[in-house]
């Protein structure tokens, strides 16, 4: 049997670096069935321990192998409300595929690719889901934030028989899936199709509703008649470095840069209303997924040179391997062991460069990674017109600040237990707002656990009455 995964068809690097079409094209049916045939159908299914939403992986793979793609997606959907999303952006190499037996000798089964295949198949056929919903309404739950955490909680509760209202601050649901992850990795039409499926389950999504402003949590519980509230507001507060020149024109947070391009479709300006400015030379500070997305986006907007400036070495880069490779293929240049110390501006207040200092790796720090230390006198200037800060995000404080009795930790994240229960009765939380910036699938896993806990809480409350 073939020891490596079937290759993912992709747009050629030369072509794709200038367009916003999806990079990975997805398996054909034949390839999918051949890849599915690599699965050993292990009795113990070790792959499953790596899946936070507990998809029965061997079972759905068997359906793919047998050519019963409808059955495959139905199986996935019993656990995962956003398979087309997860199949594209989950870090499978650290999740299910990490535990796959096939990975011991060769490459693991391409579980993510098969998941994507099954989801895309169902979408292509515009197959209606036949979810039989319980007739009886078990209660009313409010979900704050329409990112992966909130949407998962909403979907699971709707299936259980709850009337769920999702409140979303932006004009479109999806969270980072809409405003952060670029079109060429995750087409927005796909996100909206998966959300449309949730609406069919009866989930009511209210956009343009900022909780903490439109309603407070206490109002939702005490005046609007919700039995419980789930908070999935994510990690949307951009961090800056506090270096001189950071407020010059041409310095963006990755969030602003990506929001303009993804959610507001600035790449189609002036057909669309929102502009974005990218110079010929762009420096992206950071080396996570957010940084890779920003760098590759800048290329597609026409930048000639795009640098990733990162203070550690390639081994420490937090980005997914695949994204890193894609960025390299497309021509992003890496300035590793390099830290910016100052942004330089021209006399009109625009960026004209960044002063960098070289770093070397010293002793391990608290994170266990070797600590970068500046090399005295190694400063040099990188000439760029645009700088994107992609050095991390923190919790948005709007909800916490207006919710008395809700415990937060010193970083401002909401404190919640494994099941999502917070310090405040009836209030649950999960996803990036609890863990800090993490992944789609972990946010979904948290949403699932919280949905189960909310069900238990509401039923106990009703029984006690």
């Amino acid at each position, binding site marked *: 049997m073939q020891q490596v995964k079937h290759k993912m068809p992709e747009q050629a690097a030369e072509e794709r670096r200038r367009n916003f079409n999806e990079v990975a094209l997805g398996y054909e049916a034949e390839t999918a069935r051949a890849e599915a045939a690599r699965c050993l159908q292990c009795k113990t299914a070790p792959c499953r321990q790596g899946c936070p939403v507990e998809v029965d992986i061997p079972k759905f793979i068997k359906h793919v192998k047998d050519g019963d793609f409808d059955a495959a997606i139905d199986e996935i959907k019993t656990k995962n409300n956003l398979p087309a999303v997860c199949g594209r952006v989950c870090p499978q190499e650290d999740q299910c595929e990490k535990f796959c037996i096939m990975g011991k000798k060769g490459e693991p089964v391409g579980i993510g690719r098969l998941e994507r295949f099954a989801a895309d198949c169902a979408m292509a056929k515009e197959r209606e889901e036949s979810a039989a919903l319980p007739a009886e309404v078990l209660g009313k739950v409010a979900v704050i934030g329409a990112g992966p955490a909130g949407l998962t909680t909403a979907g699971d509760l709707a299936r259980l028989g709850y009337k769920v209202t999702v409140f979303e601050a*932006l004009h479109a649901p999806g969270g980072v899936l809409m405003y952060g992850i670029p079109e060429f990795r995750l087409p927005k039409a796909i996100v909206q199709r998966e959300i449309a499926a949730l609406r069919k389950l009866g989930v009511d999504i209210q956009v*343009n509703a900022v909780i903490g402003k439109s309603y407070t949590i206490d109002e939702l519980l005490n005046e609007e008649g919700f039995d419980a509230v789930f908070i999935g507001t994510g990690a949307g507060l951009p961090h800056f470095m506090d270096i001189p020149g950071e407020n010059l024109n041409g310095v963006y*947070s990755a969030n602003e840069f990506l929001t303009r391009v993804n959610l507001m479709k600035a790449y189609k300006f002036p057909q669309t209303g929102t502009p974005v400015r990218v110079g010929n030379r762009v420096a992206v500070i950071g080396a996570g997924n957010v940084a890779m997305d920003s760098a590759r986006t800048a290329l597609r907007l026409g930048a000639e040179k795009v640098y990733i400036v990162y203070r550690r070495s390639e081994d420490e880069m937090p980005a997914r391997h695949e994204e890193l490779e894609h960025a390299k293929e497309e021509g992003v240049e890496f300035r590793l062991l390099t830290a910016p110390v100052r942004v330089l501006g021209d006399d009109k207040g625009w960026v004209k460069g960044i002063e960098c200092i070289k770093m070397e790796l010293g002793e391990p720090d608290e994170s266990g990674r070797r600590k970068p230390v500046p090399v005295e006198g190694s400063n040099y200037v990188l000439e760029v017109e645009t700088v994107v800060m992609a050095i991390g995000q923190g919790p948005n*404080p709007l909800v916490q600040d207006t919710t008395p009795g809700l415990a937060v930790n010193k970083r401002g994240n909401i404190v919640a237990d494994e099941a999502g229960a917070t310090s405040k009765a009836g209030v649950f939380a999960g996803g990036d707002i609890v863990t800090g910036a993490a992944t789609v699938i972990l946010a979904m896993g948290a949403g699932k656990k919280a949905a189960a806990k909310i069900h238990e809480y509401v039923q106990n409350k009703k029984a006690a009455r």
Partner: protein
Amino acid sequence: MYEIVKKEVLSPGVLLFDVAAPLIAKKCQPGQFVILRIDEDGERIPLTIADFDREAGTITLIFQEVGHTTRQLGTLNKGDGLLDLVGPLGKATHIDKFGTVVCVGGGIGVAPVYPIARAYKQAGNKVVSIIGARNADLLILEKEMAAVSDELIITTDDGSKGRKGLVIHPLQEMIDAGEKIDVVMAIGPVIMMRSVADVTRPYNIHTVVSLNPIMVDGTGMCGGCRVSVGEKNKFACVDGPEFDAHQVDFNGLMARQRMYHDHEKMERCGGGSCKCNK
């Protein structure tokens, strides 16, 4: 859809809309703003809530046609709708009984000052308002401001109405005359707000300004609205929009507001070839 239930032209290029938005009308406080989007391809732009009618469930927006979106907004009529409207955003003005409050409004800035002046008055303050514009035609909300102020002073650059000169002149005179001023609230072009801050700084008069940097989300997510206040980065949409005028880096704010100016002109006017000068 949020229906426009009233449209009025206040002065050339300055329009007033009443928009049906019951939830926002129910919750909003003076000093807060909304972000709107006209249609599917539209950008998100912030506008201050200039007034509200909690019973009728409407809010009032007053805006100046300066660029693409505000001009497009100006073409809408009574009965048309806005696709998205989110709010109320930002912190409400700190209203209390301070004593004597001077409310300064320049140009379109009179619109956001109006509900604040009214609230100060209702809280029992003596309200002196100074409103100014380039000329008499551009002056807005004169009657409304008169109704909520103990005293109303008007200035125009060309002297076509009220006193000839800038809004800071009567303010300086009040100070020179030894009148006790407890708070100054100033809203208008950044240059005006900066001059007001310069006037009151030597006397340590608490001065508040409402800033209008470029915004995208309005919820603290993009960081595009950051302004330097007391040498710290603040996000105007959630930490503001009102700040202590003596702490604000106005020069930085002015530079950042120009971020999209040339770019927009060029792209929208076919690369500048049309010479329309807009």
